[in-house]
């Protein structure tokens, strides 16, 4: 059952002419689905969320909850729980009062309300902070209050605008498990904005990738990760190498391209790839799918290490292959590897994927 629908929704802030903050967006979210908006800073995520919440009216297009048109319904009649990007906590209320606000409006009894507030606070690891004034909390603590305030009312739709951005990895992970649990239990439809792709991947049923106000791709996390539609999506979701390779032959499902080491490889391609022999194909491959080897064999290109970065779980290398910078993430790089070393990179055929520009 479809729960939230955005139908060619656009939003412009200044009068005519200027670019739209949100540009002709079509999204449908099923009931109970956990849907994530992902995209670079300033791409229109918050604006979209605010239109769903009812704080902005679309310049054009409509928004539907179920089969009701809510485009111009006032925010308090929408039953959405929103975590604002800037928290929007009530400075004149204590932590507990902030969280209890929505319950009071819903006329939840005092005892029940107290219980639920306490539960919500402990869900965000703030048990015992109820009596504090908001300005006596750290940034991350404030963010958690904002989250608790939205969760506690068990709204029909949850709108979460980067609700975990100021939390440490550990807490973020715990909290997102908590959010998912609450959301699943109540079957709440959720629209989630995050800048953290790992989070988006881990939590979402589906993801929409936005760029400059437009939706570039909608799909399940794995789909978006493994089959990005455009080079933007490929580069934005995780890290990706998008290589421009000459097309040697173009079939309906496979396009043959020439690798920098002159070997040929057939790459899986969407049906409408529109490429022809002699053109240039954009081929995406993820850094972690590139193997390091010292052997020279077909499908292995060689390059020189130009940068090295240790990130904990893996080591990121930037390898210069015939002038193109290729990123490689190696979990177990050869010991003693250093900038300037020559390396062989194995580019597995089955990990390559053709993308649109």
């Amino acid at each position: 059952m479809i729960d939230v629908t955005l139908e060619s929704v656009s939003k412009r802030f200044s009068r005519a002419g200027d670019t739209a903050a949100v540009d002709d967006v079509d999204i449908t979210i099923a009931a109970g689905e956990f849907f994530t908006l992902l995209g670079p800073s300033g791409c229109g995520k918050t604006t979209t969320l605010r239109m769903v919440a009812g704080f902005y009216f679309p310049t054009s297009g409509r928004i539907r909850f179920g089969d009701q048109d809510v485009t111009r319904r006032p925010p308090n009649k929408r039953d959405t729980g929103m975590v604002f990007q800037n928290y929007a906590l009530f400075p004149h209320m204590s932590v507990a009062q902030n969280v209890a606000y929505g319950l009071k409006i819903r006329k939840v009894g005092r005892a029940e309300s107290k219980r639920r507030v306490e539960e919500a606070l402990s869900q965000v690891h703030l048990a015992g902070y109820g009596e504090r004034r908001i300005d006596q909390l750290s940034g991350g603590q404030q963010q958690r209050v904002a989250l608790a305030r939205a969760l506690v009312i068990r709204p029909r739709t949850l709108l979460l605008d980067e609700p975990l951005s100021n939390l440490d990895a550990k807490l973020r992970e715990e909290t997102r498990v908590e959010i998912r649990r609450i959301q699943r239990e109540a079957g709440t439809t959720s629209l989630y904005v995050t800048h953290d792709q790992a989070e988006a991947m881990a939590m979402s049923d589906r993801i929409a990738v936005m760029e400059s106000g437009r939706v570039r791709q909608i799909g399940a996390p794995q789909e978006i990760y493994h089959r990005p539609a455009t080079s933007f999506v490929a580069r934005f979701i995780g890290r990706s190498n998008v290589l421009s390779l000459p097309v040697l032959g173009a079939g309906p499902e496979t396009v043959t391209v020439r690798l920098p080491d002159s070997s040929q490889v057939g790459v899986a391609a969407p049906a409408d790839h529109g490429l022809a022999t002699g053109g240039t194909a954009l081929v995406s491959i993820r850094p972690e799918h590139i193997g390091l080897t010292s052997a020279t064999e077909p499908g292995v290109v060689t390059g020189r290490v130009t940068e090295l970065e240790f990130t904990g779980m893996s080591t990121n290398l930037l390898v210069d292959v015939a002038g193109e910078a290729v990123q490689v993430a190696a979990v177990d790089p050869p010991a003693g590897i250093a900038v300037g070393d020559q390396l062989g990179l194995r580019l597995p055929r089955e990990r390559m994927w053709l993308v649109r520009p």
Partner: protein
Amino acid sequence: MSTIPATPSPATIPPVTGSPASSGGGRRRRFTDRFTGGTNSRWFPYLLVLPLALILFGYVVQPMFATFAESVGVDGVANYTSFFTSSGVARSSLVTSLIISAASVLLCGIVGVAMAFLLKRFSFPGRRLIEAIILVPAALPPLIGAISFQLLYSETGILPRGLQHVFGTAEPVLPFSGIAGVLVVHTFTMYPFFYLSAAAALAGMDPSVEEAAYNLGAGRVRVWRTVLLPMLTPALVSASLLVFMTSLASYTAPLLFGVDQTMTMQIYINRTNGDLPMASTYASVLGVVSVLFLLGMRWYEGRRSYRSQSKGVAAHRREISNPLGRWLALGASLLATVVLLAPVATIALVAFSADGSWTTEVVPAAYTMQNFVTIFSDPNAFQPILNSLQMSLLATIGCVVIGVLIAYAVRRLDFRGRGVLDVAVMLAWALPGTVVAINLISAFSTGNAFSFGQVLIGTFWIMPLAYFVRFLPLVFRSSSATLAQIDPALEEAARNLGASWWRAFGSVTLRLMLPGVIAGALLAFVHGVGEFVASVLIYTSQTAPISVEINNRMYSFEVGTAAAYGMLQVILIFVVMVVSGRLETGRRASREAAQWTA
């Protein structure tokens, strides 16, 4: 690892549509954005504003037009051109009034903001007391207040004569007279406009913004100049408007210090002359000047945003290492206390001295309780006080309800005629009280549409109504200034949690506006208790306010009993200040000030 299908399913790739749908016109979009209602509630702003607009139109704007019509009626062209001919009284009155008003704004601004800084940023012994007496100057009864200034600072005043004694000079030292005297009185009686709004704004400001400026290397002065004062703009604009208009319409001070070429004096003189059209011309010019100033200020304020964009709520805590500041603050406020209380003390001196006994001495030679005995031996002694209290209270309540709503509408809602509404509210403040009162009498001496067919003159209600119309601008302005600081996202959050507009407004927006609203309400109340010029034209024997009572005593030159009544009024207002200080702002403010000095 999952296998990779040849094509992503087409459904997941959004259709690329051509041109984006064109927008439906900027004006309408902005209007609808702000407005947060359902399909039929796009009229919401109008619904909210319409009754207010009607009231204002009926009671202020329309009579104002009548005034204007009168001014152009007979020899309108001649009346108005007299303002442009270089030698006329009209022109020099206008210039004098403008100079006095501009200088008053400047002086009140300096004093008021300095006091706000002192009291809101430092904690020192006696701070609470000063907070309580800070409004006393505004509370001085008009006639007595001015006389106490004369007794203090004029050629025959305590200070010049005292200094004359001390230095043994032939002439009194440092007497104030003319425009200087007017400015002293204006500064003294009007700085509370600045003090109250600046204090409310300082309390509502995001402290981290100030910290950011310090962090970037700005010194204290620079932070004030480039961050704090600009951030206080809405408050300062509000206070400037009030002071400017009050000064323009000020009557007693120029009168007492013999500056008679002012607009208000000319209005009075022309009315005495029986030249009503010319008087109306002056009143209209006064109105036009005020409106122009208002529009200028609106434009100036509207250029920027003053609400914090910070994430979350910043800690209201700052630690000052320098104990010197504390002692300086203490010294400065001791001085302030003396200056503030001097006129009150003078009134007390008069109240406790026998009439006619204090002539050429520096301070009276003999004291008596007789004046108070005289007052209290009248069985109805308290009636005027109770009347004033009751009527000002009613008017203040009305001002708060309506003023806050209009402030909200003008700041937050986008509808046609916002600026007009703003001007309409302020007009009542820009016009001399006499003109407003006469307008009201005309409007309510017979029933008309705006008075819902009611005849109000001769009834109790005309007085609170007059106070309401006259003092609405005070509450409106200072509420509007605090509202400028409040992030609309807070209201949005409340709405999002299910609160209706009213509820969100009441539990969040209004609550955060409260310092400004209280400041405005205090001003309205205090001015209501002291109001004379309009009251004298509309009071009845049942509603005689304290100011009329004082005036009667002054008229028969019973200065002693007049001063005794004045003392009662001052005490009354002092009590109100203390109570309201405890009510809300006081406690929080002192907590905050304490935190600033830690």
